[in-house]
């Protein structure tokens, strides 16, 4: 790790405390000028592509989940060459500590972190509480875009299989633990998208047979930070009876909310084998002759 971990007492309880930093930690590193060099780069990843431009954490650089991390033609992530370009342009090399934050309780930040993990970028962390917490604490924002010195990031081939599930994997996985992190209305089949979002994108409503409904937001506190380890264990271990050695698939609509849950299970609770099904409901709910269950249970 290029930069020391945040020895926050809340984080110490998690399986991998080094995966989170607090707003205090980041503000401290900003104060001593430790952000924006090769050791530490801060990235903002939002749903709204312009939000960064309205004001962001000083020294932070924008990464857009859609324009930078998704392939422009195929429904897939970028390849190793494009990923190397995206990171290199942002002054990130293979050993850089990357801290990601974003809007919507860090959905898109967790999504970016998960994509970074597909490429095996080792030291990538989330800012606990994301953009909203930084703003709520009245910390500094700027529209000043830092001048980034491009560096050479190696071309690394993605390694999808440990943390990414495809439709056929999910078909084969039916009967084993699966977590549907969408809202209850989407799970039951009443809604095809989150409440308050456009109802589009799938021909059928419902969930993958056998999936448990554990909306992602249950892992988040009101201020957008992650709940403490004991509270998370009460949900996923006690209530849902999952165990850290289970082979688990998580999904939502396009894989962004389930990245949040993937982060919780993998890095905060230390589960060994969690895969995110990024095709999620926009693939499953449109696929021909795949099994679907409807109803709340």
């Amino acid at each position, binding site marked *: 790790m290029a930069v020391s971990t945040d020895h926050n007492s809340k984080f110490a309880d998690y399986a991998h405390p080094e995966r989170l930093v607090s707003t205090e930690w980041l503000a401290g590193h900003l104060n001593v000028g430790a952000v924006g060099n090769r050791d530490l780069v801060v990235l903002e990843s939002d749903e709204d592509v312009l*939000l960064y431009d*309205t004001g962001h954490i000083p020294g932070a650089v924008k990464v857009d989940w*859609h324009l930078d991390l998704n392939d422009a033609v195929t429904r897939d992530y970028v390849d190793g060459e494009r990923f190397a370009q995206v990171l290199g342009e942002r002054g990130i090399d293979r050993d850089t500590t990357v801290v990601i934050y974003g809007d919507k309780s860090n959905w898109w930040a967790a999504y970016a972190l998960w994509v970074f993990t597909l490429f095996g970028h080792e030291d990538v962390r989330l800012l606990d509480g994301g953009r909203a917490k930084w703003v709520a604490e009245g910390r500094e924002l700027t529209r000043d875009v830092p001048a980034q010195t491009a560096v050479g990031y190696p071309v690394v081939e993605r390694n999808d299989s440990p943390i990414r599930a495809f439709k056929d994997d999910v078909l084969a996985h039916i009967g084993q633990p699966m977590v549907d992190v969408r809202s209850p209305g989407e799970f039951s089949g009443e809604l095809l998208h989150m409440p308050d979002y456009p109802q589009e994108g799938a021909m059928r409503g419902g969930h993958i047979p056998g999936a448990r409904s554990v909306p992602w937001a249950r892992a988040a506190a009101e201020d957008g930070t992650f709940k403490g380890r004991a509270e998370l264990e009460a949900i996923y271990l006690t209530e849902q009876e999952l165990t850290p050695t289970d082979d688990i698939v998580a999904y939502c609509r396009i894989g962004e909310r389930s990245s949040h849950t993937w982060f919780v299970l993998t890095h905060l609770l230390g589960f060994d084998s969690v895969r995110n099904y990024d095709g999620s409901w926009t693939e499953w709910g449109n696929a021909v002759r795949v099994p679907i269950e409807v109803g709340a249970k």
Partner: protein
Amino acid sequence: MIDGRANGGRANGGRANGGHMTEGRVAEDPASIPLPAALAEIAVDFLAMSARDRLTLLLDFSDELPELPERYVGHAELLERVDECQSPLFLVVEVERDATVHRFFQAPPEAPTTRGFAGILREGLDGLTVGEVLAVPDDAPYRFGLGEAVSPLRLRGMVAMLGRIKRQVRSKST
């Protein structure tokens, strides 16, 4: 805080002289119905810029989107919600006796892209009559070169806004 428009925004984007180029630009595609003059001028400005500067200009539109008039504040029931936008947007259309159309929008600061789309339609349709608004081509949102700047996926919200404005104009002018 440094104002984003310093690098290529409207202040030095050359919009003032853009109007006379409008017809030539639009006529390049014979299949297109022309945009009304103000909207065409905005399109020319966007198309003259790099994708990065287009975002800056879109942010200007977001920043400059006026607050709702007093008569609508606290009256959510008078506003139409545009569900197709990723973030909540509300709009209302007024049609005057002389058939001039006015549009008002409300979207939160956390949704600058949506606000920017609304700002383009507010300024680009300013002072038009019912007939002129209804004649705006439905593909207008795709003529600003914003697909490569914000992705075509996100432009659907603007298509929906335009569709709902036209629907309100139709129902309020008959």
